[in-house]
Each structure stands twice: as structure tokens, then as C-alpha cells.
């Protein structure tokens, strides 16, 4: 795998994105802001405080986590699937000096870039709403790139394993939605039996949410464990991602 060739693939995706961003930004940006407003102000009206903060301040950092995750997951599930099987983009690229490993790496790095992009947008938005307490919030930017690698890897593994595009719905319903709900974004998991928190510990969004919350509150020490978790998982998933994708594409 050559990083230079992987970046050729990245450049292609970036070029397409700069043409189409207006339509996808609505999906990835308006939706999290609606969550923030609806839950923060709507539900927040009935909840006095969580962990000593107004409810909207409690959920705001979590919205960085979820919206960056969804940006990557959309890109690397439906986006990648369409590129492989409908638009034949992979076939065209693989007839050039870019090889399968470069191509997979390009998809992963691009997926992580989308996380970073949407992370930045949401950080800007919640900062404008005065929902952030510390400049440490800026450290979230490199972190969402790392978590973007994890989400891209999981998504590509999923693309490689599903028999058809409709089956991707299972990934959303059975994995993403529960992870989204039980990641600690909307409520702390303390109120649940201990095993809920234990299961959540094995999901990347739970850690990303805690990191975002710690850094927005100006508590970098509280982010360390999560960052290590994400880093380790990002590395562990690399061989699986490449092996499954190679197998899916090269017959």
C-alpha cells in the first residue's frame, strides 16, 4: 500500500464532495442540529440539570460524536457500496496503477476526513450557541479523525460481509441505532443495570462521547482512556478491513 496512491482516491472523493456537498450537508448537519434543538430545548425544559449542567450543555458534545460518526458511516456503507457495485468506480480505479490496498486505504482515510469535517462544523455550531466551556474542545478535531478511521473500518467490513445493499439496514437498525441511544449522548448510563454500561464500553461511540464531553468541559485527563481505546481498536481493525474487502472485490 502506498499512501500517495491512496491519496489519489481521496482526491477523487474530495473533488466529488466539493461538487455535491450542498445536498449532503443538509443530511449530515441539519439533522444533528435538530436533535440539539429538539432534545436540548424541548426535553431540556423538563429536565433541570444533568451532572450539574443544563440539559442542552450535557448533550451538545455528544452531538459532535454522533454526527461525525454518521457522516463517516453513510459515506463508507452506502457510498462505498454504490461506488463498488453500481457506479463501477472501483473497477475503473483498479485498472490503473492504484491497487486494491491503496483503494481501501483511500476509502478509510476519506471516511475519517468526513468525520473530521462534520466534527468541525458541529464544534463551530455548539460554540456559537455558547455550549462549550473550554478551548480544549479543539482537541476533539484530531480525535474525530481517529474515531473516523474506526467507523470507516467497521463500515467497510460491513459492506464486505453483506449479501446486498438492503442488508445494510440491519447494520443501522441492530448496531448503529442502539449504539447511538446507549452511548451516553442523551443520558448517563448510571441509571441502568451495570451490564448496559459494560456493553457500551465495547462500542466506539461511547468512548467518543466521553472524550467529547471531557474535552468540552476542559478536562483533557478524562479523555485519555477513550483515546487509547479508539487508537487500539483502529489498529486492530486494519487487517480485518483489508482482508474482507480484498475478498469481496477480487474474485
Amino acid at each position: 500500500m502506498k499512501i500517495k496512491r491512496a491519496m489519489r482516491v481521496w482526491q477523487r472523493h474530495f473533488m466529488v464532495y466539493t461538487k455535491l456537498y450542498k445536498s449532503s450537508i443538509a443530511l449530515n448537519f441539519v439533522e444533528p442540529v435538530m436533535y440539539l434543538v429538539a432534545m436540548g430545548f424541548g426535553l431540556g425544559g423538563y429536565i433541570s440539570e444533568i451532572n450539574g449542567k443544563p440539559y442542552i450543555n450535557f448533550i451538545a458534545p455528544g452531538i459532535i460524536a454522533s454526527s461525525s460518526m454518521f457522516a463517516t458511516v453513510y459515506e463508507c456503507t452506502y457510498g462505498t457500496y454504490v461506488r463498488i457495485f453500481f457506479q463501477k468506480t472501483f473497477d475503473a480505479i483498479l485498472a490503473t496503477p492504484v491497487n486494491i490496498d491503496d483503494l481501501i486505504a483511500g476509502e478509510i482515510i476519506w471516511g475519517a476526513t468526513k468525520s473530521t469535517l462534520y466534527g468541525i462544523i458541529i464544534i463551530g455550531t455548539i460554540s456559537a450557541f455558547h455550549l462549550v466551556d473550554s478551548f480544549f474542545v479543539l482537541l476533539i478535531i484530531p480525535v474525530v479523525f481517529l474515531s473516523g478511521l474506526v467507523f470507516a473500518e467497521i463500515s467497510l467490513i460491513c459492506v464486505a460481509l453483506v449479501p446486498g445493499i438492503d442488508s445494510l439496514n440491519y447494520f443501522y437498525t441492530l448496531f448503529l441505532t442502539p449504539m447511538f441511544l446507549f452511548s451516553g449522548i442523551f443520558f448517563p448510563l448510571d441509571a441502568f443495570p451495570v451490564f448496559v454500561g459494560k456493553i457500551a464500553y465495547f462500542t466506539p461511540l461511547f468512548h467518543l462521547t466521553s472524550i467529547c464531553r471531557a474535552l468540552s468541559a476542559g478536562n483533557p485527563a478524562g479523555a485519555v482512556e477513550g483515546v487509547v481505546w479508539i487508537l487500539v481498536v483502529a489498529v486492530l481493525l486494519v487487517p480485518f478491513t483489508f482482508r474482507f474487502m480484498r475478498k469481496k472485490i477480487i474474485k
Partner: protein
Amino acid sequence: MEIITASGLTKNYGSFKAVDNVSFSILSGECFGFLGPNGAGKTTIMRMIYCFMPPTRGEVTVFGHSVTRDPGHIKSRIGVVPQEESLDLDLTVLENIIVYGRYFDIPRKKSQPIAMELLSSVGLLERMNENIKNLSGGMKRSLLLVRSLVNDPELLVLDEPTTGLDPHSRQMVWHGLKQLQERGKTLLLTTHYMEEAQRLCNRVAIMDRGKIVVVASPKDLMEQYGGDLEEVYLRLTGRKLED
């Protein structure tokens, strides 16, 4: 000089033998055609030559390099026109060539003038900023063809370059391929059209069920078996007529 050599080439998909122990060689500057019914193994051979899939057994070398050991080198020197339309639908006509050129490490500054020249050679220059969706089938084929030329390849691999085209567009593609051959490029193509093979190919290989039945020039085949190339083809592959 031999540009491609295949020996004992075999590709299995599970228990199905798509290509079954074939050997052939293709000379520099010639136009070589693979003829055969659907499922005869033509596309599979092409895909192994342009390093898209590895052989199950046997060996192919292109420019003296092995497709399994040195695919990067081979791919940098060839152009591929795949059977399936693989243009980038999210990009314009011009961007399609520029982005493709970038995969060969050709920077935009260099690829843009090349792209404009290529587009003008197929009459697509004034449509360079258009969306791929607005192109006719013939224009898309022409674009696929010129896209494969952006790296000035020595060998061009074309998988059914004119399937689905109207007679006018087909003539246009043939004209383009003739010109490339005159410029010394080696052409390797698969086709269902005997007229295409007869007009373009110096030699053809007729395939059936994963095996090469015969390799010869169209002229020799017609002399040896009698009738036109289509009759020869049907006789050599026409199991359904006999069954």
C-alpha cells in the same frame, strides 16, 4: 517481439473452469482479438491480463513482467476499456480524464492539455464541462476509450468495445482504433462482431468453454474452413446447432 505471453493459464470460480489451461502470445504492434460466445472466458482472460484478478494456475507476463508479481508496473503502461461502463458519474467529461490521469500520477497541469486533445479527437471537446448523464451511448464509449489513453499506453485492452453501439458510433470507434494501431499501439480486444474482428484484427483466437479452439488470422481461417468468418466461428463454437 512478444508483449503478452500466457502459458497454462487457468481461472476457476469455485468448481467452474472459466479459463481452462490456455496458452497464447501477442506480438508488439498487432491487433489481437478474442472471439467466442458469452461465458467462453474472454473477459476473464482480459481481467487477468490487466491484473484485476490473479490466475488460479499458470502464468501471464506483460512486457516481460508477471501479472501477479509486478502489477503496478504493467498497469502503468497499459490502457483498459472495460466491458461495463465505468465512467465517473459524479464528474464532468473533462474531470473524468483528469481524475483518471491522477491515478497514473499525471498532474492536472499536464493532463488537462492531453485531455482536451483526446476529447477533440472524438468530437467531445465542446461537451467537456457536461455531466456524463447527458452523453449518448456512443459518446460514453468514446470517452471510455480516450480516458484509457491518458497515460499514452503501449498496450490497449478493450473488452467488447462496441457492444450496444449504433452503426455510426461503431464506425467511429473502429476508426479510432485503426488510427491507434497505425501509431504502433498493440491492441487486444474481445468481440462478438465478426465484421469488427475481420476489419481490425491481425489474428484472432476463437474460444469456447474456457479453451482456445484455434488461433489464426481471419484470412487464414476463412481459407482453411471456407465461408466468411461468421461461418467459421459458428462451425468452431456452434455446439448448439449440432446438439
